[in-house]
């Protein structure tokens, strides 16, 4: 029984259906040696350990030193780096920016993706063409996307001329130099780039929904609005788990789009943690950059695990 429970939990955790019972019976019946040798794990674990886990452990150590390009010796300094980043206010400011950015991206990317999926759900040739086209930004380099929007959003740019034509008077709004709202606009650009991926995943989710259930609801007199919220939306839970989790994690660790649109400005109001890390590394302040890298690691871990757990639970309840 315990074996069954753990197997199913593992299968659920990976999103795969449980293993068919035949295999377990066969393994128990014959008592042969497992057919997958341990050494098959070695190459993957060796690369993962050397180039992922060891740097992470280094990170824990070097965040507490005065490592920089100006000195040859590296000495432990305790919590000095954290103190200086906290007292200058940059740590909390950048952390706040990063979290707000990630939440905005997760929100917009999912709203855009879901709306596109619903709009393009029917299998017409126009819809198929539109789906392919909306995937083009996903393929483009994020850096390139950032430059395109920097041009679009210039005070004399295309967006302002379109708005000006609509309003009937010239518009000269500096979209990327607004200390209050630029973060929002950059998050919208990020969501624009990735909405095609969210759309595809929602489309796949919509395809798995049983057509008979929808038909039954329709016969019972449910409106399109009711069938969506009562039947289709809850069944999109797995797609939403994937989309929210990837959008949150992806944008927490974002760099390119912000760098190419604002470079962290105006007045550092869009400076997310990776921009800080890039900037301070360039200045030779390695310990400060490492400290911020550790902060990013901790924050992502703190945010990610509850998010995934909550979303998974929502799936299992349904």
């Amino acid at each position, binding site marked *: 029984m315990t074996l069954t429970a753990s197997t199913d939990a593992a299968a659920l955790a990976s999103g795969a259906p449980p293993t*068919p019972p035949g295999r377990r019976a066969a393994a128990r019946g014959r008592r042969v040696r497992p057919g997958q040798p341990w050494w*098959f794990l070695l190459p993957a674990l060796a690369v993962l350990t050397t180039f992922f886990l060891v740097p992470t452990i280094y990170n824990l150590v070097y965040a507490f030193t005065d490592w920089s390009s100006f000195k040859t010796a590296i000495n432990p300094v305790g919590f000095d780096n954290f103190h200086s980043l906290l007292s200058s206010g940059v740590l909390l400011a950048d952390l706040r920016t990063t979290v707000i950015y990630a939440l905005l991206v997760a929100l917009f990317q999912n709203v855009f993706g879901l709306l596109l999926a619903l709009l393009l759900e029917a299998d017409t040739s126009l819809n198929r063409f539109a789906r392919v086209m909306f995937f083009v930004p996903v393929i483009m380099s994020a850096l390139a996307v950032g430059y395109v929007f920097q041009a679009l959003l210039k005070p004399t740019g295309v967006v302002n001329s379109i708005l000006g034509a609509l309003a009937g008077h010239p518009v000269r709004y500096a979209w990327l130099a607004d200390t209050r709202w630029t973060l929002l606009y950059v998050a919208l650009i990020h969501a624009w780039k990735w909405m095609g991926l969210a759309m595809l995943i929602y489309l796949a989710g919509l395809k798995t929904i049983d057509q008979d259930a929808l038909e039954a609801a329709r016969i019972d007199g449910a409106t399109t609005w009711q069938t969506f919220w009562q039947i289709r939306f809850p069944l999109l839970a797995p797609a939403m788990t994937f989309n929210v989790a990837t959008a949150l994690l992806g944008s927490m660790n974002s760099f390119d789009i912000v760098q190419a649109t604002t470079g962290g400005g105006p007045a550092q109001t869009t400076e997310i943690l990776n921009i800080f890390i890039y900037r301070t590394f360039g200045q030779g302040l390695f310990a400060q950059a*490492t400290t911020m890298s550790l902060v990013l690691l901790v924050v992502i871990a703190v945010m990610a695990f509850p998010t995934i757990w909550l979303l998974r639970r929502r799936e299992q309840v349904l």
Partner: protein
Amino acid sequence: MSGASRGWRRLVHPVVVVGLLLFALGVPLWLVVVTSGKSRGDALSPSLALPRHGWHFGANYSKVFTDGRVWSAFVGSVSIVVPSVVLLLLFGAMAAWVFARRRGFAVSMLYAVAISGIVLPPAVITLVLLLRQLGLAGTLTGMVLVYTGIYMSTAIFFITGFIRTIPPQLEEAARVDGAGPVRIFFTIVVPLLRPVLATATILICLYIWNDVFYAFFVIGGRKDTLPLNLFQVASAGLYLNNWHLIFAYVVLMSVPLLVAFAVAQRRIISGITGGAVK
């Protein structure tokens, strides 16, 4: 079906879709293409208008091809992406086979560690330190191993999930017939993994081909890749307002992936959606 809903489908819906396509995609993409063909004077303030001083596609593209070292950057990008993908798929599939088929506490623990990289961000600064100690800083080998380390968790996660859905009878039959694990893996398991390997390849190529952040730290200033050189061209170009050159480079660097996408569009789309939602 009611009359209103039919009217929506026939008339309003195509108008909405075409309008959205023009507005949300047409405007940015047209801006890139038209600006990349303008003279410097016409491109100073990028607009959707046609050029006033004629087309300059040839001049702009050839200038940026030389200044941005596009050929060298293309070769650099390919020689990083291809080995990374091969290592990720091979090592990832080998490990995933063990994780998917064997049971027990040790396997679960190792699996948790192996997929932690999906969630946790790489410690990029100390990664550079480690590469210096290993003598791999600024080398293509170092870059390949870094990407392999960063995306190994993603590869293992996707492939393990897929193997769990394949019944193991075939492998067991082969084992009873006396085939060794290496032979079983390469002749039976790997061919069955084609769909998930395709999905993983697409996602990993997208990430690595377009990455500039990790490339900055590991090989920035020493090796050429397409995004790194775009950053150089753009940093100089923004200062001088050379939008025509920036967008010419954007077009040049987007072409390889767009061509690949156009050729394999159906497979890519079904590959991605197949892997994410089961």
